[in-house]
């Protein structure tokens, strides 16, 4: 079962913004080893998939309630800020799990995905207060939220040995919209942050100084945005390819039932 979940995870994920999907797309669950069935971890109550599920629902529910309460979505970021930071940073544990071998995923790929999300939350959204009311923040948060809810549902149902085709379909289809949505949100947020970073000289150091070093965070952010150009199409088309493989495979199986 773990092998099946891990293989399925290795074949792609349900979406997620930008490079955040990288880890999932290639090997094992890029984000969380919920694919640990009871057999593999006899001491643990319940699977990680089931325990992880609620956190994204918490964020989703938080979003909906805040919207209903305030009638506008501009201050939504503040409502979900704390849980978002907490859970997304907690995802760093997933890297540790890969490193110490509980999870058969690649440490490099998991790190890449988790780091890119942590970067966006802390180094961009949190650090540049002025972008927190931007629509683009909502865009990627919603994309990430929906992705993760579908993904963990997929894992949970798989573990229960009862995976409705709908969930599998959703996981391997919705990314087509969610992935570009997340990437757009991320890029727009970074872009919106640029003028404030420049103005404040945020995280930047210039010459002269006694360590003979300089760093321009503004230029760094631009480089990050440019890096999406080669990376995003590769990941996206890889997932499209996986989709074709997985979903047509299922069709064939259905024929033989």
């Amino acid at each position: 079962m773990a092998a099946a979940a891990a293989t399925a995870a290795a074949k792609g994920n349900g979406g997620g913004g930008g490079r955040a999907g990288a880890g999932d797309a290639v090997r094992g669950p890029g984000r969380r080893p919920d694919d640990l069935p009871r057999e593999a971890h006899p001491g643990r109550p319940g699977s990680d998939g089931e325990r992880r599920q609620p956190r994204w629902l918490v964020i989703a529910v938080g979003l909906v309630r805040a919207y209903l309460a305030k009638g506008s979505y501009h201050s939504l970021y503040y409502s979900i800020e704390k849980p978002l930071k907490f859970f997304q940073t907690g995802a760093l544990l997933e890297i540790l799990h890969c490193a110490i071998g509980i999870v058969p995923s690649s440490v490099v790929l998991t790190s890449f995905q988790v780091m890119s999300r942590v970067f966006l939350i802390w180094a961009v959204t949190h650090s540049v207060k002025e972008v927190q009311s931007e629509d683009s923040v909502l865009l990627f948060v919603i994309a990430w939220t929906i992705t993760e809810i579908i993904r963990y549902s997929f894992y949970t149902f798989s573990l229960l040995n009862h995976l409705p085709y709908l969930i599998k379909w959703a996981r391997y289809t919705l990314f087509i919209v969610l992935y570009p949505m997340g990437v757009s949100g991320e890029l727009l947020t970074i872009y919106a942050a640029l003028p404030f970073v420049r103005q404040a000289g945020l995280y930047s150091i210039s010459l002269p100084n006694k360590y003979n070093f300089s760093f321009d965070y503004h230029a760094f952010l631009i480089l990050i945005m440019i890096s999406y150009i080669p990376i995003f199409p590769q990941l996206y088309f890889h997932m499209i390819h996986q989709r074709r493989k997985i979903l047509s495979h299922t069709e064939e199986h259905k024929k033989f039932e």
Partner: protein
Amino acid sequence: SKHPDPLHTLREVEILDAKTREKLCFLDKVEPHATIAEIKNLFTKTHPQWYPARQSLRLDPKGKSLKDEDVLQKLPVGTTATLYFRDLGAQISWVTVFLTEYAGPLFIYLLFYFRVPFIYGHKYDFTSSRHTVVHLACICHSFHYVKRLLETLFVHRFSHGTMPLRNIFKNCTYYWGFAAWMAYYINHPLYTPPTYGAQQVKLALAIFVICQLGNFSIHMALRDLRPAGSKTRKIPYPTKNPFTWLFLLVSCPNYTYEVGSWIGFAIMTQCLPVALFSLVGFTQMTIWAKGKHRSYLKEFRDYPPLRMPIIPFLL
């Protein structure tokens, strides 16, 4: 009646693709004492795009590559030998790679040292730094890479002739990139000399020089271990040269001295990018040293137990 002499029966060799099992080549009337190298040359005749350096021949499709020196009749094969072929990809000689990756930093650093136009503001074009340490740093950096180039040409004895072509792009990006990054700051008009002044520079220079001499001594000692043209492997031991006494404590003292040189250079220039370069280099060399140490232990029963891979007593 004479029995057919097995030592002189001509053999047949068939070469199959390791992945597709397609029959690529059939050689008949092969001398039993032919080496794998000779078989590779024969194979190239029918498939000229696969020159010997990019051929990997093995007895098992997933097995280890056979060595060029292996002799056909000594292999566990019958009168018809089946060999599996894998293409290693375009190859480039080690010497070429080393020369290219070392010539780059030598040249690039000098571009920054002489403040060639378009690097710093126009008013600084072709000006000279007023800090002694900047001139000293240029001498040290240049000496280091000239030494490496000369060692590549005259000292090192490579056990492999070639490496995959893509390595040259990877390696050159690393060496040339870091050289440019370091040189930019050290030769910058706004460069700040070391906090503890001449004292710091003198100490750092001493470390650098000692480590350069040490590194060279180890390279010479390793060369003397292996006669020209051979691929023998022996345990290296300290010689009369005191710099080689580090062999008592470490398997790869050449790497130890190399890290030391760069730490010296970092202290001399008090430049963070140099420290980062040292750290990255140290990480890579530690990986190599651990690998080398492991193969020494596997190959030699009587390997000195006190030795660590790269840092005495620690790592």
